[in-house]
């Protein structure tokens, strides 16, 4: 090196460290081997020491991010009353793949939809692009965790153009989408000029199901059985109807009334119907967000909205709300 050598300014000092604190390993230890003295410094080359310093900084930052993520994950489990603590903490660092299984019962597709005849069990949903069915998008992402779902989006010829976010609302194409027989369930969303959302499944044995609420009920049954307690089941049904008839299609007065009712119901428990997250929460969340009444809602509702948003399945719906 063609620089002046400078003597150490400060001689080595012995410091008495306090013993009442935790011992921490030296964070500077990992730099050692990265710095090779025989590496010639060329024109424009960065000093290996600087490089090492940068690497160390990156390392520290990475650790900090990890820590932040872990804390956020913990916060989420605190905020979301239902989420299983262990599962969530274990997976928060890669929260995309978190498959927090909120539903206990595991229904069998064969018993629900009839025997497999070799054809893909394809659920076809005709929706009007003017009213994207947010509830169904949430249910779709829940279905994707449970089953191998082939999701496709089509545009019907009765609609001339559809905004791009509606075309990608079911997420990226599955890598195996070229082989339809490899899937358990088909979810085909068709943007079509229909007055009312409709779902077709088995055209031979089943009439089309009309209305977002009813389709949501059908899809939810594929995820979890309705509560066996008839009172609870009725409660869920009641909230779903309230959401669609009084929130989505209701007058300002009705909406205000529903929001008050939501607030008081959420004062009694973390979720709308009983101790578990259910279709009632999905439907009410989507309708509250769609009508834009979230900001004016009372504290319990606000807290509940946060809880819902902490679940990854609401991601696709949130994208469309923006």
């Amino acid at each position, binding site marked *: 090196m063609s620089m002046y050598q400078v003597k150490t300014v400060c001689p080595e000092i012995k410091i008495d460290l306090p013993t009442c604190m935790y011992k921490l390993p030296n964070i500077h230890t990992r730099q050692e081997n990265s710095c090779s003295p025989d590496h010639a410094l060329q024109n424009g080359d960065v000093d290996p020491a600087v490089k090492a310093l940068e690497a160390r900084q990156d390392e520290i930052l990475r650790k900090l991010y990890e820590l932040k993520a872990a804390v956020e994950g913990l916060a989420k489990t605190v905020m979301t009353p239902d989420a299983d603590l262990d599962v969530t903490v274990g997976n928060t660092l890669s929260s995309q793949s978190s498959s927090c299984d909120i539903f206990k019962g595991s229904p069998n597709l064969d018993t629900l939809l009839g025997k497999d*005849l*070799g*054809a893909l069990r394809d659920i076809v949903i005709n929706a009007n692009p003017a009213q994207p069915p947010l509830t169904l998008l949430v249910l779709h992402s829940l279905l994707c965790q449970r089953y191998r779902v082939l999701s496709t989006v089509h*545009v019907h*010829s009765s609609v001339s153009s559809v905004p791009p976010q509606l075309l990608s609302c079911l997420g990226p194409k599955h890598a195996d989408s070229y082989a*339809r027989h490899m899937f358990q369930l088909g979810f085909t969303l*068709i943007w079509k000029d229909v007055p009312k959302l409709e779902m077709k499944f088995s055209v*031979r044995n089943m009439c089309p199901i009309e209305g977002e609420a009813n389709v949501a009920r059908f899809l939810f049954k594929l995820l979890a059985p309705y509560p066996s307690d008839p009172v609870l089941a009725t409660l869920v049904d009641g909230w779903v109807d309230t959401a669609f008839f009084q929130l989505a299609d209701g007058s300002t007065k009705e909406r205000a009334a529903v929001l008050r009712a939501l607030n008081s119901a959420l004062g009694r428990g973390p979720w709308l119907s009983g101790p578990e997250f259910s279709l009632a929460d999905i439907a009410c969340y989507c309708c509250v967000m769609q009508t834009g009444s979230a900001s004016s809602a009372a504290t319990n509702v606000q807290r509940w909205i946060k809880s819902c948003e902490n679940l990854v399945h609401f991601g696709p719906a949130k994208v469309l709300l923006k």
Partner: protein
Amino acid sequence: MTKEEVNGATEEEQHAQSKKALKKQQKEAEKAAKKAEKQAKLAAEQQSADEDDFAKDRYGLPAMVQSQEKLDRALVRVQDLTPEKADQLIWLRARVHTSRAKGKQCFLVLRQQQFNVQALVAVGDRASKQMVKFAANITKESIVDVEAVVRKVEQKIESCSQQDVELHIERIFVISQAEPRLPLQLEDAVRPDGEGEEEGRATVNQDTRLDNRVIDLRTTTSQAIFRLQSGVCQLFRDTLTKKGFVEIQTPKIISAASEGGANVFTVSYFKSSAYLAQSPQLYKQMCICADFDKVFCVGPVFRAEDSNTHRHLTEFVGLDIEMAFNYHYHEVIDSITDTMVQIFKGLRDNFQTEIQTVNKQFPSEPFKFLEPTLRLEYTEALAMLREAGVEMGDEDDLSTPNEKLLGRLVKEKYDTDFYVLDKYPLAVRPFYTMPDPNNPKYSNSYDMFMRGEEILSGAQRVHDAQLLTERALHHQIDLEKIKSYIDSFRYGAPPHGGGGIGLERVCMLYLGLHNVRQTSMFPRDPKRLTP
């Protein structure tokens, strides 16, 4: 004057006749006198008219146009006759669609392709009685040159395409006269399906139409059909060119039958014989092997099938596509279906008037499709058919009624008239079809359907000479006959696939017509070689 004499005689003879009878006789006499007077007057009038027809040079039959002179006269199109042109004096050339004389005026409907306008010749300071008479006697379908003033009308003229204006004719000349007896009436030829039978009015049957195709093609319906067909061709070319395809021309006289030898036309070729191409398949594939990457061709295809159905022709226009792909033959399916969707969209957006015109005569539901196109697998189709009660084996081909049924099932569930059926059983496809990599029973082949009828059949082709030889042997094909075909894959061939569409069938099914002869301008079938 003998009558009066007789009258007088009777008077004398029967003096005692009643007063009533007398009166009657008097009246008769008066009548006779009046009649004579009238006749005389008429004759006089005629004479005077013949002598001085002030509008003599405003109508007539000019000499045949032999390019004697080059007039610098601007002719207006019928479709441009709008209220903006009101009160202008214009020249126009059109056909006489109908004419109706009524006393001192004559109404004509003048037609140009699918557009028509009402015109009027009335006795006045511009037109004489003789001119009105002349106009009334022009035969239907004659071509006339007309000078007229455009006038706005109070009430819309419902029967014409130009509803807001009419023409007041000042001069009219016949350029080409039609024979008075037409083999078919245009009004009869455009009468909606079924309506004629109910009201006891005439309809024109298919053969009369085809025998007199020139007149039949003049109808608004035919005009619309063939304009739409031209649109299909144009959209096909434009879309593929945009996708980087190259249009190629392939020979139609070939030395060996490309797809089996059964349904091929033999033609004499100097001292030996040759065949008419059943499809450009072989040449398309050779172009791929010659590194053209993506090719298409539009041209005639010949099939010597003696089948007299609503959808078979012995010569039709084939729209053929062949392309090399990278890793999966679905790249080919995506390209073809996207091309079809672009065609359908183009027709939906730019040919609405033509579609409406055809619908007036042949009502049908509008063509529906999905973007991207729905793709089903053969096993799924089988399951759907079985659910509907059809019994068929796993490796059976779809029969025409089953295809129709499947089309209805798919339409019911997905509400689309266009879809792809993928993964056909290997056994029902030609030998050059690539087998499925996972299941030897199936193949990388597909059919496309419109309104439940097959319009395209395609596949990934075997591009390996070794495998091709095996497949040919399996199908018991004489290797000598297809040697040149196999040889073209010996020097390195990219993986490729493609398919071919029949233009007439696509038009027929898009419009929901029931006979492919309606969408073929001069159809060729086992029973028809003319016109």
